């Protein structure tokens, strides 16, 4: 069943869960200050810290977490790149970056996600690759100088702060936190039944196969699938503002 974060403390106090499973979206919300659920995720993790409740994740969460940060950092870096090189740029590339800056600032002001999609990133990569400065092209400068130093430490910092516990699924090695080994076939069925991405289906399948009774997520779509698949046996917590109109 889907519950709001405001019910988290009461649940934790009464049920004393062995842990919470954290999906990618909630870890991203907690580690990216401009995310709309950053403050709400802070309150949730403070409750977990107060009651010393472990947080679990899977390796799929790590991969998707870094991908989300990549998409957010590229959006930020494009604005910074423009600020630093505006006088050296001209023509369609300058216009493209200026349009991006305007849209990026509007999203920040309106509290919307600033992450770029894969097609947008590809389009910027092509445009910046044609801009040369000294011995590098614009895309290389953007990645090496702006993106890499910001992206590289983000997972380690997050893992240390939340002291995350990973549920492993090595063949014939049933983790003490798993009821059964998650199968690839079931993950594909979940993808088909709900039309969700493969990474989300694998994360959800791992949670459903685990003994962890509760999930923290800021993705309502995933929350709805998890609630339906767990048939009322697990608790799915989402930020209050995600379901309040």
């Amino acid at each position, binding site marked *: 069943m889907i519950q709001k974060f405001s019910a988290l403390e009461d649940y934790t106090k009464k049920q004393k869960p062995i842990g919470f499973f954290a999906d990618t979206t909630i870890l991203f919300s*907690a580690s990216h200050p401009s995310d709309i659920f950053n403050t709400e995720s802070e309150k949730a993790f403070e409750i977990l810290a107060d009651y010393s409740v472990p947080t679990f994740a899977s390796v799929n969460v790590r991969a998707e977490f870094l991908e989300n940060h990549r998409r957010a950092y590229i959006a930020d870096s494009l604005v910074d790149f423009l600020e630093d090189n505006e006088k050296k740029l001209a023509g369609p590339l300058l216009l493209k970056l200026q349009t991006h800056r305007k849209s990026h600032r509007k999203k920040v002001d309106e509290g919307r996600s600033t992450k770029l999609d894969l097609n947008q990133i590809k389009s910027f990569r092509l445009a910046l690759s044609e801009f040369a400065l000294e011995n590098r092209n614009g895309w290389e400068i953007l990645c090496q100088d702006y993106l890499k130093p910001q992206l590289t430490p983000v997972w380690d910092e997050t893992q240390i702060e939340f002291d995350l516990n990973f549920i492993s699924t090595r063949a014939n090695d049933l983790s003490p936190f798993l009821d059964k080994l998650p199968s690839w076939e079931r993950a594909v069925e979940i993808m088909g039944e709900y039309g969700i991405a493969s990474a989300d289906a694998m994360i959800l399948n791992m949670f459903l196969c685990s003994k962890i009774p509760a999930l923290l997520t800021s993705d309502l779509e995933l929350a709805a699938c998890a609630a339906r698949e767990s048939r009322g046996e697990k608790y799915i917590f989402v930020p209050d503002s995600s379901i309040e109109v």
Partner: protein
Amino acid sequence: MTKLGVPKKGAVARLRKLYNERREKTLTAIREKQNEKVEKTTEAPVKKIAKSNHDLESM
């Protein structure tokens, strides 16, 4: 069984601080590098060339 880790108190606030510090450090490093390049490429002062004995004496 090994002891399970639990989230640290103030974790999100520290992550926010780390994000801001990382961003500032990255942009400062880029801008310092750019300024160094500008200084290096600034035209060096033209050396005076002697055109007369008077110039040679004054150099």
